[in-house]
């Protein structure tokens, strides 16, 4: 029963959602399943939070490796949650001027932006290592990367200002984006979509059971 019930549920919901896409009156069922999804998605947020607190509290209690960082996690959670829930005007907690908004701007935003900014450095080191003209294909990749990197910023047009308009580096970059790049994206998207269809069918038909844990 432990395996059969989830399999039956998966098949029922999956097939209903597919058929409802083509048979409009079945949208009532589709809407009902979507309502259930809304509820589960909302509760999943709580589940994540509770899990985070439980794991870190456990780490602190048992003095496991790096347990001081568990205190940092829980403190950070409380510092954001308590002002947000109790001192920021209830539902208007995200309005300008609330304590929550202040913490968002001065704590969360700089931390998040800093991590994202790491990408700039990693892109540079990855480009330095990866873009070598080892063979024909790698050379084409290198040339395209060059054209795009310079063409997508004003410096590209500035370097090639002596060329007639429409034939500058910026135009070459736009051409690469509009044609070869889009063609490649489209091909990958079609392949991925078909892979998704096949995988989803396997899950719905019960052929793929890894998501239930083991086989």
């Amino acid at each position, binding site marked *: 029963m432990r395996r059969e019930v989830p399999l039956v549920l998966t098949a029922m919901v999956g097939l209903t959602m*597919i058929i409802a*896409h*083509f*048979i*409009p*009156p079945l*949208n*009532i069922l589709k809407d009902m399943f979507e309502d259930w999804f809304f509820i589960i998605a909302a509760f*999943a947020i709580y*589940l*994540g939070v509770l*899990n*985070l607190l439980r*794991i870190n509290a456990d780490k602190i209690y048992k003095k496991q490796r790096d347990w001081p960082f568990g205190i940092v*996690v829980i403190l950070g959670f409380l510092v954001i949650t308590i002002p947000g829930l109790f001192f920021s005007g209830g539902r208007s907690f995200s309005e300008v001027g609330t304590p929550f908004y202040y913490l968002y701007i001065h704590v969360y935003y700089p*931390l*998040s932006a800093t*991590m*994202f900014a*790491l*990408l700039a450095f*990693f*892109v540079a*080191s*990855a*480009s330095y*290592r*990866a873009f070598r003209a080892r063979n024909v294909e790698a050379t084409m990749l290198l040339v395209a990367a060059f054209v795009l990197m310079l063409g997508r910023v004003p410096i590209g047009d500035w370097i090639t200002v002596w060329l007639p308009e429409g034939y500058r580096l910026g135009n070459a970059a736009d051409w690469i984006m509009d044609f070869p790049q889009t063609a490649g*994206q489209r091909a*990958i*998207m*079609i*392949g*991925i979509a*078909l*892979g*998704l*269809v*096949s*995988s*989803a*069918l*396997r*899950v719905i038909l019960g*052929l*793929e059971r*890894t*998501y*239930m*844990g*083991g*086989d």
Partner: protein
Amino acid sequence: MIKTHTPFFESKSTFFFLIFLLAILFLLTPFPVEAQETSEVEGEPVEEAEAPLPAPPANVTAKDIPNDKGGAITISWEKSADDGEGANNVTEYEILRSTNRDEGYEHIGNTAPGATSFSDSDTKNKVRYFYKIKVISLAGTSLSLPSNPAFSKVQWFDLSRLTLFILALIIGFAIFYFINSAKTGKELFIRKIAGLEAVDDAVGRATEMGRKIIFIPGIMDMDSMQTIAGVTILGRVAKLAAEYETKLEVPVSRSLVMVTCRETVKEAYLNAGRPDAYNDNMVYYLTDDQFGYAAALDGLFIREKPAVVFLQGQFYAESLILAETANSIGAIQIAGTAMPSQLPFFVACCDYTLIGEELFAASAYLSKDPKLLGSLKGQDVGKFIFLLVIFAGVVLLTLNSVFGWNLPNLAEKLF
């Protein structure tokens, strides 16, 4: 009290009655709202002419919205002649509805100026409705003539999705056919996928070096097919790690994924005959936050220096941070994702990358289960159909643009 000696006012009551009438007349006279402008010549007041009412919308038509479950009617009209031209003072349109052509109209919605259609999604099926459009302007309002009667009805099949339905049937049939074909023992050719072939070697390398394997199943939840595909590969990696007695760590970003991965790894250790070696702490939850997760993993890589890092699942911007950090510590990396925007980063930084559908093929490829392999072949039929359609489209459009052959209608209808 006014004294007068004219004969008309001989009677005081008549006089006062006349005054009373004049007063009423005075109070009821509609004086203009705006102040009267004077012309440039002093002493010559210029009277402003009263603005005419806006021209009403014309040709109001209503019809059932096709390919739906009923309960909706679309209304369209020609906009007022004073909307965008003429007096150009229309502020909005009001849509009115009734079940009776001549009376009982009630307000059901508004649209901005310039609008020429509205959807009424609150109708009862098989009930006849009439619609009128009221145009509201600065000068007043005007009402259109009633529309034709219309009623909403259920369509049992969405004809606008017929092409998709046929395609889905063909691909579905192909998948079922090849699954059945595989069940009968027919051998199906699947090309080598380098990333999956390298899994065994990578785990072996970690064993030789005495360092651990870190497996990251993406940052999305179990509702993502890529996560499911990643967890499938985890099962295989966990079984190998159990057999070779190599340390395995699976830090995850979602609680549901943690639960699933624990079950998968436990099952894998059980199947490898090493249930004693399994520990719940091998799979642990870090945080839902994307960059918090990336920061935690980076710290883990630098401190633990794993021999092998698997990045299998759905990734976003953190992909380059993870891949580059793992590269910097000299770990072997086997990545796989169906995110087109992240593939270039993995290809640049990792030793092996499963591109797009290769990730979805992993469960079939690794298990060699005939049913799963059959589904891969079925998906190839779909790809073949797409190739044919694209080729046909390219040919038709090329012929049309180069030779001017009269094929645009056909090409447009098809594509």
